[in-house]
């Protein structure tokens, strides 16, 4: 590590970041399709694939550098401390703080993850997330329906049960998203911890990574390893499967709900089309057999 400290490296970095952001603002309109009205390519082919690629790249550059930049700044602050013990304490404390900050990005509302005592499994708990409704009894079917949980009665009972099923499934999807977000929070937290453990010996020895790219690539390697460790686990697999399965069920229920309206207007429905497809298949098979093409 050099003994010649830059005059104000953090100010220098901030200045460069501002320049980078301004530069991106100048370039981004140029790369957007003609709809922005600012592109020199207006009227010509919008170059959808290339413009989309450019947007993705710019977004990823900003996003990807987020963690690396945070780690880089932490390294800079810690390295500025002359005493080795203080340097390592500062770094380790900083890593823990980063873990906490980034993990919070994935933290779901407690109302979705931790059912209150006595609640039906999968129930959305009003008390934690909506104090205004704290006086209502627990709602095992979902939110938004004061009479939900009661049996449907009257001519609209079928529709009421459909709506309750929909809201219950929507709750299930949100809970599954929350569970998966918790898993991702663990991934990021573990990745930051592991990254800190890899960088700590370098910092202790007075040798810093020489490039932001080096920190970034190390972050990706570490993050992928942390992700692999979590993604193979039962908790992650079950959370991911539950999200996929609940989304499928919700989509089916939404379609059934829409088809009720479709039938009311004598519009073709999925069930009707499926029946037609099956009939066409049977006819094709019969024709193939008759023509000896099998």
């Amino acid at each position, binding site marked *: 590590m050099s003994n010649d400290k830059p005059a104000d490296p953090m100010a220098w970095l901030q200045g460069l970041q501002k320049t980078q952001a301004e530069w991106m603002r100048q370039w981004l309109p140029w790369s957007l399709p003609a709809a922005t009205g600012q592109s020199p390519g207006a009227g010509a082919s919008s170059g959808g694939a290339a413009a989309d690629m450019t947007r993705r790249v710019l977004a990823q550059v900003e*996003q990807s550098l987020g963690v690396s930049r945070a780690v880089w700044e932490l390294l800079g602050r810690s390295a500025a401390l002359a005493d080795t013990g203080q340097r390592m304490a500062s770094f380790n404390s900083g890593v823990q703080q980063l873990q906490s900050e980034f993990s919070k990005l994935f933290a779901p509302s407690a109302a979705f993850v931790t059912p209150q005592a006595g609640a039906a499994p999968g129930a959305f708990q009003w008390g934690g997330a909506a104090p205004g409704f704290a006086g209502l009894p627990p709602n095992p079917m979902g939110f938004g329906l004061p009479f939900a949980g009661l049996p449907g009665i009257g001519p609209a009972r079928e529709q009421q049960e459909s709506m309750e099923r929909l809201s219950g499934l929507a709750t299930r999807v949100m809970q599954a998203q929350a569970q998966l977000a918790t898993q991702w929070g663990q991934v990021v937290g573990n990745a930051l911890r592991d990254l800190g453990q890899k960088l700590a010996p370098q910092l202790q020895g007075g040798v810093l990574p020489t490039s932001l790219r080096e920190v970034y690539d190390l972050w990706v390697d570490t993050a992928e390893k942390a992700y692999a460790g979590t993604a193979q686990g039962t908790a992650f697999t079950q959370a991911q499967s539950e999200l996929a399965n609940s989304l499928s*069920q919700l989509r*089916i229920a939404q379609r059934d709900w829409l088809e009720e309206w479709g039938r009311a207007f004598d519009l073709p429905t999925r069930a009707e089309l499926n029946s037609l497809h099956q009939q066409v298949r049977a006819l094709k098979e019969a024709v193939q057999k008759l023509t000896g093409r099998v």
Partner: protein
Amino acid sequence: MTADDRRPWQDLADLQRKLAASLAPLRAAAGVQYGCSAKDAVHRDDKLVLYRYRERAPRLYLPPLLIVYALVNRPYMMDLQPDRSLVRRLLELGIDVYLIDWGYPDGADRFVGLDDYINGYLHRAVRHILDSRKLPALNLLGVCQGGSFSLCYTALHPDNVRNLVTMVTPVDFHTPDNLLARWVRDLDVDALVEAWGVVPGEVLNAAYVSLLPFRLLQQKYLHMLDADGDAAQLENFVRMEKWIFDSPGQAGEAFRQFARDFFQENRLCRGGLAIGGQAVNLRKIRQPLLNIYGRQDHLVPPSASTPLAHLTGSSDYSELALDVGHIGMYVSGRSQRELPQAICDWLRSR
């Protein structure tokens, strides 16, 4: 400020410079084309098109080679561009190459199942080649899921296949390092198929990129900038991106059967697989068999492919392992140099 201290700031400035240099070539790459070898459509069957490639060298006296690609991606990966084309290399070696393009399923295909694909479309394509060329049998090259299909086809119609090549083909779907298979195990496949009918390609893409999310959603795009504005490199990158995300929807019934019978119940490996009511017994495969896999393949790990050695009745089983990943098997420089010649030599000696 010392030279060492300048380096990180230079990194950021360098990144901006590379980004600026890349924007114009990226924009120019918008209309990127793929497929570089001339071919003719010789047979059509619903959405399937069977192509025969035009020769690029005097043809060897060998049965034609039919390439059976997976349903989940487009087959032009085999002929992506002049310097990345397994098909082109095989043609230059004198192999007579046919390729099945399965097409893009739509809502009318939701009830198409594995029996339709294997005993229907694939079988009719094989019969077209054999009948039109008056041949008793052909050589079959199955890629990835297409390899699984080719194994099933050969077991069910052994007389039509002379030699069988499988490439990055999963056989055992329950090995510990197969993350994708692990995820599918708890999936309610019936609900997914009921919800979608034809499972969108985007759903499968999301699963694939989720296997390596930091590399495939972030790092890959930053590394793209290392091309430093090189138009040819960036065009190649955009072409690859086109293929990666150009994923057809999956006919619901076929998806259901493949996910349940292959991924969840591992029947191809364990036994008990039936296609169209006919039992698939891999022991009935007695043809010479070349099994090619990539040592760095994260999608079909070697452990998913190598059990094939003990599952067939072939007395002439060979393996070819390359130090490449799943996609690298088609497009890497190493595979372009080694693979076509290896396949040609293997076929010529049988």
